[in-house]
């Protein structure tokens, strides 16, 4: 019995220590004067591997999710003779929830796991130590550009996701199922608002970007530098980041729309 309490205590202490480590890592990576000339190419490189390479999966998933929303929404709404509300239904679900959340989940799986594995491998092959011994701070050189790349990329990806999703809903609703095109867009327009819907979605996405990228970098940077350690850290990134996104989404939704 006491052993269980002790192990619970150890788990709690470990997680507090982990959170502290992660906080210190982030602060040290972000504080201090950035050298634009040197960090710009690094940021570009990371924007490419984190953002551009995630584009295809985001566009494809966005299109399919939009099309499914269109189809499902139509079959439900048509029973109430309210199929003209298909536009706002698709747009609001995407802008408020699915865009930011699904993008964050896909991002955690696609880019987050890659970040963790890459940094973990750099640690295991002593590249991080080697940077330190060359008097180059790995936090500035490795962590910081990846963090900013994730932070800038994810909201862009979420916006693209929502736009493509709305187009997918339009394809199914208007082109296939024959909802009136004018009604689709105009009812959508009268129900969707910049501040309340689009901006809040972007804010959500920024929060998720911060969280997912931070978790991925922390897991990589503080992983056990062995093959088992890296694979655990990668799994843990996807699991932790996904749970964090879903939990935060509830809190943010409650704050914004509650």
């Amino acid at each position, binding site marked *: 019995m006491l052993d269980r309490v002790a192990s619970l205590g150890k788990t709690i202490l470990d997680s507090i220590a982990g959170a502290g480590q992660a906080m210190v890592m982030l602060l040290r990576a972000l504080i201090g004067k950035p050298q634009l000339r040197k960090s710009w190419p690094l940021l570009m490189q990371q924007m490419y591997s984190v953002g551009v390479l995630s584009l295809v999966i985001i566009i494809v998933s966005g299109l399919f999710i939009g099309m499914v929303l269109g189809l499902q929404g139509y079959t439900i709404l048509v029973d109430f003779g309210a199929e003209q509300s298909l536009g706002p239904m698709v747009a609001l679900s995407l802008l408020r929830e699915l865009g930011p959340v699904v993008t964050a989940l896909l991002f955690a799986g696609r880019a987050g796991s890659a970040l963790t594995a890459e940094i973990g491998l750099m640690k295991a*092959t002593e590249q991080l*130590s*080697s940077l*330190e*011994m*060359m*008097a*180059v701070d790995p936090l500035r050189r490795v962590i910081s550009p990846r963090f900013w790349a994730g932070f800038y990329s994810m909201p862009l990806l979420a916006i693209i996701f929502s736009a493509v999703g709305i187009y997918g809903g339009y394809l199914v609703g208007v082109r296939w199922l024959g909802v009136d095109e004018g009604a689709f867009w105009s009812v959508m327009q009268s129900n969707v608002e910049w501040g309340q819907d689009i901006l809040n979605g972007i804010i959500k996405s920024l929060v998720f970007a911060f969280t997912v990228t931070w978790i991925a970098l922390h897991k990589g940077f503080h992983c056990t530098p062995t093959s088992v350690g890296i694979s655990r850290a990668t799994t843990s990134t996807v699991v932790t980041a996904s749970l964090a996104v879903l939990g935060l989404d509830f809190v943010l939704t409650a704050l914004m729309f509650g």
Partner: protein
Amino acid sequence: MSSVNSDDLVVIENLDFAHAYGAHPVYQGLQMRIPRGKITAVMGPSGIGKTTLLRLIGGQLRPQSGSIKFAGHDIPKLSRSALYEQRKRMSMLFQSGALFTDMSVYENIAFPIREHSDLPEEIIRTIVLMKLEAVGLRGARDLMPAELSGGMARRAALARAIALDPELIMYDEPFAGQDPISMGVIVKLIKSLNNSLDLTSIVVTHDIAEVLTIADNVVIIADKKVVAQGTPAELQASDDELVQQFLSGAADGPVPFHYRAASFADDILGSAAEQKGTGNAG
């Protein structure tokens, strides 16, 4: 800024160190001097924390107490920025080479120069080619690290380690896993670089035969402290049992063959309860 009158580049005094996650101390009251301009070989059984020693000197780990003076600066007490300043004067050759896998050999060696200077591209090119020439890899400059053999990767890493003309190079197991020819090449390189660049070298290794041919000074670490120190000739003449066991490679002796455990008879008969200790992480 360094103490000019001292002959020792690195002076370690009363060093106590234990890993945060292990209860067992790695070093207790370690005393060591690394003479300037010489090659010092640090030897000892596996798992004794030789790599830890290099990381302590490099400031990557902090000891619980004691001082590590590098050219008069007490490394554990330096602020972060001062420590980075001192690290520009030392470099370390990691066991795996630790080349950056996403850059070519040329870019790897140019990397520390680019990071720490604003030299124009032509000068960087000249320096990089000079360093590559010194390790005999000028022809391999456009290869990626994945295309190099183990020995070549280590030589490329060595070229990177001397890119900024450091005062101290620390070699972490430079001979491990090398075929006899590349081992011979690296031995020769350590010696010639040390002489031509006026370096101080610390070589951590178990490969006694190779290192004894080039070392000016040998330190044997065992049981958390230095057990013997001297020139290769002095050590070979030593009558210390442990030194002899280590130099001759006998399986059993003061360093036991068995990992700490309950007596074998107790263990198989099951009467000894869990008494196994946890090992020293090295």
